């Protein structure tokens, strides 16, 4: 991880100005990985401020269009997190999102979307370390895809 925690970069009130551009948007279920005290004022990850977090009540509320929009509007990657498979508080939310992203349930993720820029993680509230590692490898994946895309064009 190369990023410096944003809290070290700036006083809390002006942190927005100091934030790097958003590379990744994360749509995070409020019951999965716990991000309390892990975010700055602008809902960026303290461990990696290029990641912007939007919290939702359940991964099942996430529409594929939200992830498509993130990419269309300039994010390099977009991920969703839900609880462990089998432990969705509302029973089936994570399973349904997974099926939507895999194109097995309506409404589906558009087939034209570059799947390497979309990820989904199933983690419980006490699995922040696992989460941070996954974000790190997602950043690496996105770097690779960026390089491939640049080479192709």
């Amino acid at each position: 991880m190369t990023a410096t925690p944003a809290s070290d970069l700036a006083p809390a009130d002006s942190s927005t100005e100091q934030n790097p551009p958003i590379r990744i948007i994360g749509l995070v279920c409020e019951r999965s990985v716990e991000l309390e005290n892990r975010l700055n004022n602008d809902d960026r990850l303290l461990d990696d401020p290029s990641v912007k977090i939007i919290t939702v009540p359940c991964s099942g509320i996430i529409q594929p269009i939200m992830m498509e929009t993130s990419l269309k509007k300039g994010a390099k990657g977009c991920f969703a997190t839900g609880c462990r498979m089998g432990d969705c508080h509302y029973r089936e939310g994570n399973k349904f999102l997974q099926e939507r992203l895999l194109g097995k349930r309506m409404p589906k993720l558009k087939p034209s979307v570059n799947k390497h820029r979309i990820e989904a993680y199933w983690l419980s509230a006490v699995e922040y370390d696992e989460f941070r590692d996954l974000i790190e490898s997602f950043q690496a994946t996105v770097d690779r895809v960026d390089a491939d895309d640049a080479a192709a064009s």
Partner: protein
Amino acid sequence: MTTYVEAIQKHVVLPLEKATNRIFTQTYNPFYYHGALPNLFLWVLFVSGLLLLVYYQATLATAYDSMKFITYEAPFGNAMRSLHRYAADGMMLFVLIHLFRVWFTDRFREYRILPWITGVILLTVMFVVGLTGYMLIWDADAVALTNITVNLLHAVPVIGNGLAGFFLGADLSGSALITDYTITRILVLHLGIPMFMMFMLWMHYLRITRPVTNAPTGLVFLMLSGLALFSAAFPVVLGEAAPPNFNVALDPITFDVLYAWPHQLGVAGWDPALIWLLTLAVPVGLLIVPYLQKKAMRGQFAQVSKDNCTGCSLCYADCPYEAITMVERNDGSRFKKLSIVDPARCANCGLCVGACAFKAIDIPRCDSKDVLAEIELALANQ
């Protein structure tokens, strides 16, 4: 403010499940099949119980001998008896895990109150099934259990003698003592209550869409082979024959703690009134517990936009709590159906929002249009 439920979930349940995920992976974690595993054991009980019934004889003179035949002579008799015994313990164990898990992960109140209440009823009657099962053996322990039960029933105020009379079959035998009718009554309870349980389970699932009643094959295999190995390693033996006079005082004995703890207290000389109080405190306490917490949702529920809804039924298919019905519409719309949400059943979860491609349904605490706007705003600023 953190509630006790949240604290237990964060410090006990989730770390425990994180550890079990390492062993089983999340696909086979038994804690994720807390409702399916009691069902599995229930099926084992039905099948093994049916085979036991082939040889069992419900009379005072022959019950013990028929158990002896089953245990030591009938083909697979001991295997069936052992499976039946350990499956009963397994079922109680997993029902308790199920109960504590739904409780301590906050899945036990508001729109889940029907499964909770029917669950408490299931737990209570299961207890009677297990207890009568131990009586049917009709060895010395069984006779002791029966006698303590009769004493406990007599101790109930006002209707006590009636209850004891019903249990003994006094209406048929005309006697306040244990007779052949008693053992028939015990058998009727042991077989009849499971039928009632099937009805209760139907109610248990009434407001749950696609209840997970089956564990994955690998886990089923693991549980069944565990059960079989345990039965082979510790085959059930038959207790001593009861003394000829069934109504004598008995030496201190140890019963199955899962099913006969009140009777154990009876053996220890506790006052029947106290035993009843303690026994009844369990279901009554469980029925009260959901109401001790502040409502999380404060009457919020999913809202449908009449203008946008196309009647495609995707939300109806995905709602995990049977909260949506599709109704015919004749308000001049070009669409034939409209989605309607039942506020009392709605979990305010938003799964319907994820299912809707027409921005026609939303939950108040997280509007999908706001999420989209937030994404666009965040990315527009750079």
